[in-house]
């Protein structure tokens, strides 16, 4: 039996009885095998880094064990935690603000054509502007403190979410709106019971996109305004030519990004559970 035949008869089986069909003969590598490959790859890359990193001038490069030692030191003297909390505050506030603004605005722009016409040009303009480029101006308005950082990160977070939400609302299948109309649903119910749930996967895709951008904006803001948080740690140890320690906040930022990404993924599994069933 060819793979195509298997897929076809699999589809038939699925049609008649609700079961999972997998063709044993053509199925790919097992999960277990894939994980073994992944772990081997990690060990190989870290090992190579350690080996070549030790040969290099410690000013230009570092290596895993040295970074681990610096990590312990920074945890013990409390520097890392304090910086992390400062950065997280900015990040969380901006993220909540940006998400709420992006989602609400996106729903309205996507649904109401008159509202869209009144704001779509400004959305395109701001979306295309590199937010970092207006940082000097923002500093003039809001000073060097937290408001400037929050403003920059919020502006960065809004757009991916906004653009995706608009696309989500516009892509609600017309036949589903039809169902709402046929059952005499009010505009409010059509919004809450059809448009919103239909757009959720798009919204979450937008949130996931904005996570990465938010972390970048955060570090830029911490470099160029009142120096604080993880960005400050990077600057400080960079200026001290302590490359191993400088890597600690960088890796922390990386972990933060990964964690936020998987948080968004988990939210998607909860909020759009129907897309993850077979």
């Amino acid at each position: 039996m060819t793979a195509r035949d298997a897929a076809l008869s699999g589809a038939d089986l699925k049609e008649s009885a609700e079961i999972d069909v997998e063709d044993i003969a053509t199925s790919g590598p097992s999960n277990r095998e894939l994980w073994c490959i992944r772990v081997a790859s990690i060990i190989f890359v870290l090992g190579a880094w350690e080996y070549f990193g030790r040969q290099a001038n410690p000013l230009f490069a570092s290596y895993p064990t040295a970074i681990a030692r610096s990590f312990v030191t920074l945890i013990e003297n409390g520097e890392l935690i304090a910086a992390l909390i400062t950065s997280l505050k900015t990040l969380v506030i901006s993220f909540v603000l940006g998400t709420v603004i992006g989602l609400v605005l996106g729903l309205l722009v996507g649904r109401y054509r008159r509202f869209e016409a009144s704001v779509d040009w400004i959305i395109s303009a701001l979306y295309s502007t590199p937010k970092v480029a207006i940082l000097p101006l923002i500093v003039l308005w809001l000073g060097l403190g937290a408001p400037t950082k929050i403003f920059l990160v919020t502006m960065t977070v809004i757009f991916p979410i906004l653009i995706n939400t608009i696309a989500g609302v516009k892509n609600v299948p017309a036949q589903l709106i039809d169902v709402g109309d046929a059952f005499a649903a009010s505009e409010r119910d059509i919004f809450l019971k059809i448009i919103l749930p239909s757009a959720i996967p798009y919204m979450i895709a937008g949130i996931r996109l904005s996570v990465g951008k938010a972390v970048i904006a955060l570090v830029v803001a911490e470099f160029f305004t009142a120096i604080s948080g993880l960005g400050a740690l990077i600057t400080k140890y960079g200026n001290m030519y302590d490359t191993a320690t400088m890597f600690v906040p960088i890796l922390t930022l990386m972990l933060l990004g990964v964690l936020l990404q998987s948080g968004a993924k988990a939210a998607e599994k909860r909020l759009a559970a129907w897309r993850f069933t077979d």
Partner: protein
Amino acid sequence: MARRIKLSVENLSKTFRVSAGRGAPPSLLPVLRNISFQVREGDIVSLIGESGCGKTTLLRIVQGLVARDAGNVKVDGKPVSAPGQDRGFVFQQASLLPWRSARENVEFGLELRRVPADVRRQRAAELLKLVGLGAAGEQYAHQLSGGMQQRVGLARALAIDPALLLMDEPFSALDAQTREELQAELLRIQSKTGKTVLFVTHDLDEAIYLSDQIVVLGARPSRVKTIIDVPFPRPRPPLSKLRGEPRFQQIRDEVWELISQKTAAVA
């Protein structure tokens, strides 16, 4: 025995405006012209006609999804022009909300009426049982086969207990076997609930098997060509048996003749 008139369509006309592309002036496309017919309480009436003749448009006007240009639609003697829960609609594609389970889809119309959750749940369970899906309530739409999705669509329309059930070629996308199964199911469910049904189809056998009356529409702009009474008593034998009846063939030939002859363009 004179039964009440459930649905009355009077002198209904509809013309669409079709944009012919950039620069060209829009042209007018008359679809329905002066359509009148009535549906008695408890009857199943089919609208049949060749594709593009406007039968779906007619059904959507009755539901209130499309505005009419002229004429009247009356349900239980009251004129209707907007969608309302006195009419239940079953779509050609089941159009289930994919983020809802089968049960939650059935509850949709009741939710809009702010029916309490426990009442909704019970009603949905009854209806899923009625359409033969008692065990599938917690499945999502995409986990159900096409036939099962259409059963959920039917349960969703019945849940609001409409005076009139409107069905827009609901079985046309199904394979032949499933289609016959569901046609028989519809007859069973209709006899149990006593619902009045207006059913759009282009399938002659389906129209004859299901209906008490068949309204034959001509080509666009369509008008009612004939209304044919289908004399078979209910409950009816399976379609495969009924097909063997000489009277069945006779009606089939008659309707076929009417549909296939091109209407002379009369004003």
